[in-house]
């Protein structure tokens, strides 16, 4: 199917939910949604045939956090297309519902974005535990823009 057909199919599926759907050639469909609708959107996308999540990207946009789910399918024609499901979260309340019940493939990725960006995924079984960072790490989540990388040994000033 062509990308505009896919876009129409998704629009039809998500008709009653507030979602901005945009198609970018050649194979990406962006869906912008609010965090309240995301679980229902995920369920409906899963029923169309999108069966796994390739990547979860959390972006620090300054006043908001954005969580991008890059979703696709392993089987059939849909495997050519990527659906980019974007959620915006306010900076002072970075909580989002976890999609781990619908797509278990997000387990480790949401965990990583939780510890790197400080976003709390409600319903995720491993919130609070460290995955990649050292166990005794305390401080700003490293991927936030306020965390500046320290360079060592470069100050030549005596």
């Amino acid at each position, binding site marked *: 199917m062509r990308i505009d057909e896919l876009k129409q199919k998704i629009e039809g599926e998500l008709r009653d939910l507030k979602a901005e759907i945009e198609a970018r050639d050649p*194979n*990406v469909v962006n869906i912008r949604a609010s965090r309240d609708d995301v679980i229902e959107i995920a369920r409906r996308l899963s029923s169309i045939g999108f*069966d*796994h*999540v*390739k*990547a979860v*990207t959390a*972006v*620090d946009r300054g006043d908001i956090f954005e969580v*991008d789910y*890059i979703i696709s399918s*392993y*089987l059939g024609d849909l*495997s*050519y297309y*990527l659906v*980019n499901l974007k959620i915006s979260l306010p900076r002072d309340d970075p909580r989002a519902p976890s999609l781990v019940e619908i*797509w*278990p*493939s*997000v*387990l*480790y*990725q949401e965990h*990583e974005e939780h510890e*790197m960006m400080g976003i709390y995924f409600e319903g995720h079984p491993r919130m609070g535990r*460290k*995955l*990649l*960072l*050292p166990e005794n790490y305390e401080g700003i989540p*490293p*991927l936030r823009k306020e*965390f500046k*990388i320290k360079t060592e040994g470069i100050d030549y000033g005596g």
Partner: protein
Amino acid sequence: MEAEERELELLIGPQHPASGHMRLIAKIDGDVVTELRPDIGYVHRSVEKIAETKKFLQIIPLVERPSLPDTTANNLAYVMALEKLLGIEPPPRARYLRTLLAEITRIHSHLYGLGIHGVMIGSSTAYMWCFGDREPFLQLAQELTGARLTYSYIIPGGVRRDMPKGFADKVEKVLRYMEGRMKDYFDIYFNNPVTRARLEGVGVLKREDAIRLGAVGPNLRASNVPYDVRKAEPYAAYPDVEFDVITEKAGDSFARVMVRVREIGESIKIIRQVLKRIPDGPILHENYEKLIPPKLKEQYKSTGIVKFPSLFANLKAPEGEAIARVEGGRGEVVFHIISDGKTSPYRLRMVTPSFRNVVLFEHLTKGARVADIPAIYGSLDYFPPEADR
């Protein structure tokens, strides 16, 4: 009076002959594993954070390094995403050269995984042979790119070097050598009754679980899911070459090993087609070629080694975001770059196949025996630095 403690907690930790740079926390009841939790992060080097402070071309070696043996996949996926942002396409000869290097890398990455798996189940012969047979491929790569393992060969707009003279004959010699060796491998290792007893029926991954958990690469294809990025969203020269997607039905460790072995055969087929059909032409996009100063351009044309235009030092990508995926030896590499018009990306997301396969450790070892842990670990071809990035 405390209850009798039957369960032993075994820390197959970073200091262990067969654990790699990670820790497996295993709870064992007798000889049976009741729970296995992978503890990763020992070699986390924060590639994504560092990439926000480096220039676009400096990020090429940065994203290559975590995924040693299969560096080309990361290099290619990153540059493809960057080219989507820049809005350029490499010339045809460069696309074929990218495919050539990607397939050579796939072969020696599979041999690496097979060798490590061999020594984990006790066959030092498989280990030595696999690593010895990687040598011809590493030397081929050295002739083509100048480096044995971390090539940094693929740059935005094309590739860095052209094929040297006589390269096609050398490649053919190496391919014939590898085909001849396959029979020995089957005689001594793959058809060895002890190997079969250790690997068959061990760590069975059912098809629904493979899809649901998001497994990638040969682990997915061994569970009868015919997904390969080279067919799903063809890139480089893959639309022009013919090859099969190798799948196996059993989903056990032996099936995963067989998928890798047969993929080596498919890669040999692809390399032969690439060498036959490669078109003549430039290896760098014309927008960048015309920016090279004339004296350096003569040098470039005579030696076939690209001289970077000074634009590369401060390459700015337009605002926007791009997603690119590549089928590496271990599985699918996904890059998601968000740019804000500066010389460094605003956000770089790098998802490597080993990171997507970590969940299989927990899932496959339930109810397995202690001796199955290395057998399953090796069959997943998991590389800890690649997962930790």
